[in-house]
């Protein structure tokens, strides 16, 4: 698939998915764990506290060069806690990496990666606002999607009470 790129000048060697993962597990030992999500996507689970360190490494490392943040999503897994899912890619090497951080649902906290990836700013703020995930070290945690005086909890959480006005679809 990649070999068909003729007219595009970017085309440096590309790491295989397992090479990316083993590079990270070698460097961070037990702080990083391999995940099997989708055969096309390399994925690792990272401990909450070491996230900024890992972010710094994947950005600065010459082979990885994961310099681009695609998206950050919060996921509420109810009994299994919460997750922050970070999607990174490289604009020079063409590979991508998914990083998952498991969070305690009672006290979800994750350090910010704004310093390494300024583009993460609003994604983190969104997760804070809609999921109630506390972003440690974020300079501006203020409401920006919901109304300013919103006091009805975190709407994207799975156990959020919709209230009477929420119109549900009939089951198919």
């Amino acid at each position, binding site marked *: 698939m990649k070999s068909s790129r003729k007219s595009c000048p*970017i085309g440096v060697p590309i790491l295989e998915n397992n090479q990316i993962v083993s590079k990270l597990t070698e460097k961070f030992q037990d702080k990083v764990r391999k995940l099997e999500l989708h055969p*096309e996507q390399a994925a690792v689970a990272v401990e909450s506290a070491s996230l900024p360190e890992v972010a710094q490494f994947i950005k600065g490392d010459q082979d990885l060069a994961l310099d681009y943040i695609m998206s950050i*999503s919060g996921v509420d897994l109810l009994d299994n806690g919460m997750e922050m899912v970070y999607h990174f890619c490289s604009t020079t090497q063409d590979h991508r990496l998914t990083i998952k951080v498991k969070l305690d649902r009672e006290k979800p906290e994750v350090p910010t990666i704004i310093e390494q990836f300024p583009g993460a700013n609003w994604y983190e703020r969104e997760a804070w606002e809609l999921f109630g995930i506390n972003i440690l070290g974020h300079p501006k945690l203020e409401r920006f999607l919901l109304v300013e005086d919103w006091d009805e909890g975190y709407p994207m959480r799975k156990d959020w009470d919709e209230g009477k006005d929420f119109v549900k*679809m009939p089951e198919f």
Partner: protein
Amino acid sequence: MADSEERHRDIDNPTAGELRTEEFQVNMGPQHPSTHGVCRLLLTMDGEVIVKVEPYIGYLHRAIEKIVENRVYNQITPFMDRVEYVSSMMCDWVYALSVEKIGEIEVSPRAEYLRVIFGELQRIASHLLFFGVFALDLGAITPFLYGLREREMIIDLFEETCGQRLTYNYIRIGGVSRDIRPDFEKKCRKFLEHMRTVIADYHALLDENPIFLTRTKSVGVLTKDTAVEFGVSGPSLRGSDVKWDVRKGDPYGYYDRFEFDIPSGQNGDTWDRYLMRLEEIKQSVKIIEQALDGLPEGDPTLKIKPSFKIPEGEYYARVEAPRGELGCYIVSDGKKKPYRLKLRGASYNNLLVIPEISTGCKIADLVAIFASFDIVMPEVDR
């Protein structure tokens, strides 16, 4: 205060720096013609010079990510149309792509070709609107009429095929909603021929206009590093000399079968971002012609049940939309509805970077900078 004094020396009046000035705040928006939607920019001004820009978003937040958790997969495509209505083909596409990846749903070759054709037509339509609106924001009315004239032809082609002029609901899970009409190819080729000739008119209209040049060249310079760090994508990223395009770097659909170039700018200023879009129109014309040449026979539609289950899993799919990388992250728990659906709009990051590059400009420059990123607000708020 040193910064402030420096700024004043830039102003034509040399004595201005000696006057005592005070900063004040101006609201630009939410209802402002040049914010292309409802976006509020809180400007801190020192005289006519911008000291700080703070974007306030959320006026269009429709909670699409929450609503779709209560809808079965087929019901979600119309919602995707409304995420970014200026290029709704792309939103349908990225959503279909992520469901197909998790569910391992096969797409027929004819459908893949049709997706490329309609996706690229959509890109041209979106860039034509940009061309018109960008010039309109800078005070020129004629380009708007030119841009809409050609865009209308594309919209007619869309309407003939799927019955809609703005929210198409055309690219569905597993294929497209219906096949093209027998005379589509002839009409499409005629349009492409027309597009090739008028693009020279577009260049003639603006490229040598001294007012246009003064207002765009070296205005709002976005450096390569800042662009990548802030996650800027699409023509705005390529204007800053980053040759990155999802169609090449992470090919989806059949994009690896087509021959096309990625244009890139040098300075990352407003002018480069404008030029990238005109160059992309030319490349899109090239792609559509190749796709029409190789269009295979077959049935592009997929008969699927109104509600179906896809296996457990997750996937982050992305496409190169006219404004940049459009992403859709789906977590499936094996049921009929997505457990979590997250959308990444290109304008989200493109808007985030505007405060970085517009300090020190004047309000009129901010209008040009804002327009050059081609921000579409519903994509930011979702």
